């Protein structure tokens, strides 16, 4: 990755090639690959919040779910055009993040983690009780999306969905890469490393954490909106603790604070899940457990550091 980073846009070009290759390599599994892409976006949102700004969260599903319900309801009641729905999902996720973030960012450590979980659980219960609006435990149905840009119909195999999601994920990824190299990205890394020092150089740490949480919420909202539009269903599972926790594991597997780690970790987790769960639906989590242990003990920087670690090992031997 280090050598790749020296060539301008080489990494981005490689990503585009992988996305194109995946389209041709898995023509009958596009729904699964699309799900991976949506999950990549969701994990990227956690990377911004946790990996960059150092905000510990186990409740990012709150924003994902809110984005999903907002986009779903918008498609059912207002317009089924995908792009406005995406914006609505993003705004809904960001609004929930800013409102909850104003309280959550006053806390830290275990209290913060527990409160993030609580926010997702409250959203879950609201969605469950508001059965008339959300469909409750049966889920929100009746979402029929119009063609993307009025041109590309969502097809049965999922080709349009795949390209639609891929383009959105790529655009958000590029924006995040830009943000990571910009003053705001540097500032968030500073807050992650030492909030005390950031205050001592005059940074409004609390406000900036709320900003990071809101941006992360907006991206999670986009991921949720994509999921709603592509699957044409929103269930209560969008608020589940498992979703937040699994996404966090994906990020830890790949490596935090580097964006690429979110991609590598998600692809690895979901592929292992897909393959191992088909072979043994009851014990597949063991494999994930071993992977996480391996990363924590031998690659604390995540799988993204594997090539560098192997090279070091090679040089030593």
């Amino acid at each position, binding site marked *: 990755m280090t050598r790749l980073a020296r060539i301008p846009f080489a990494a981005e070009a490689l990503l585009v090639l992988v996305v194109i290759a995946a389209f041709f390599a898995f023509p009958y599994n596009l729904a699964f690959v699309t799900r991976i892409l949506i999950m990549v976006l969701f994990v990227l949102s956690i990377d911004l919040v946790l990996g960059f700004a150092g905000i510990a969260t186990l409740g990012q599903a709150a924003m994902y779910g809110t984005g999903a319900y907002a986009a779903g309801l918008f498609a059912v009641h207002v317009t089924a055009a995908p792009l406005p729905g995406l914006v609505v999902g993003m705004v809904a996720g960001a609004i929930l993040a800013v409102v909850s973030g104003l309280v959550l960012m006053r806390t830290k450590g275990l209290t913060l983690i527990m409160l993030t979980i609580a926010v997702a659980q409250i959203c879950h219960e609201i969605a469950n009780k508001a059965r008339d609006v959300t469909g409750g435990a049966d889920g929100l149905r009746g979402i029929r999306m119009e063609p993307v840009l009025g041109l590309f119909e969502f097809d049965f195999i999922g080709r349009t969905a795949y390209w639609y999601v891929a383009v959105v994920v790529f655009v958000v990824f590029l924006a995040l890469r830009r943000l990571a*190299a*910009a*003053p705001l990205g*540097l500032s968030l890394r500073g807050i992650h490393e030492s909030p005390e*020092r950031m205050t*001592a150089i005059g*940074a409004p740490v609390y406000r900036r954490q709320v900003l990071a949480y809101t941006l992360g919420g907006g991206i999670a909202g986009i991921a949720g909106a994509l999921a709603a539009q592509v699957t044409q269903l929103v269930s209560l599972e969008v608020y589940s603790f498992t979703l937040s926790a699994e996404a966090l594991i994906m990020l830890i597997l790949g490596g935090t604070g580097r964006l690429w780690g979110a991609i590598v970790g998600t692809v690895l987790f979901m592929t292992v899940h897909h393959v191992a769960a088909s072979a043994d639906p009851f014990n597949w989590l063991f494999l994930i457990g071993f992977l996480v242990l391996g990363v924590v003990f031998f690659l604390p920087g995540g799988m993204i550091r594997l090539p560098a670690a192997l090279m070091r090992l090679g040089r030593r031997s």
Partner: protein
Amino acid sequence: MTTGLQVRGLQKRFGGIVVADDINVDLPSGARVALIGPNGAGKTTFSSLITGKLTPSAGEITLDGRDIRPMGEAERVRAGIAKTFQITTLFRDLTVRDNLRLAAQERDGRARAWFRRADSWADVEDEIAAQLAAFRLAPLGDKRVSDLAYGQQRLVEMAMTLMLKPRVLILDEPAAGVPSSDSHLITDAIERLPDDLAVLIIEHDMKLVFRVARSIIVLVNGRILTQGAPEDIAADQRVRDLYLGAHHG
């Protein structure tokens, strides 16, 4: 209008315990004042009251005639009061250059920019290069802070704080933890600080204090015992008995 930092009748209580009482200090532009006193005298408390980490129970703190008591910590930094920590506090996983860049972007209000590269402001990059050269850190600019020796980290902290272009600089034990072989680096750096900067040095190293300070305040049990020129303080028998002892003979 009075320029610089003025402290009048400053007091801090924690319940019935008074940790700072009736402290009066002037730090005009260009001042080099040392604050000394035995452990527990209230030096760090005083520094925390100035920076806004603690709220005074009574008294006034003004900067250029403006009451800064309602300001939070970060706001006071933006107003011109900066400090270095007793234990070096830096962004250890970032490069030396990034540490200085962070300070500059906060100072200039650019920290929320998200589309332009952080290293694309030529004027700031020139300023960082000049600051690194001034502290003889230029060859270390691209190194991660965690890879530097402690003395070098002390210099980085001072260089970063100066990037804020403060008017008042509080150095909290700048030589603490620095090996004696490197302590001249710190002393030299303090001597090269801008002439118009008001500096308050909280320090136990009397060699350093008597070399750089033009005025010394002796704090005991939260109160000022005496203050004056270094030679007067050195001659004061109470100070010799209470604090200096064998340090300064």
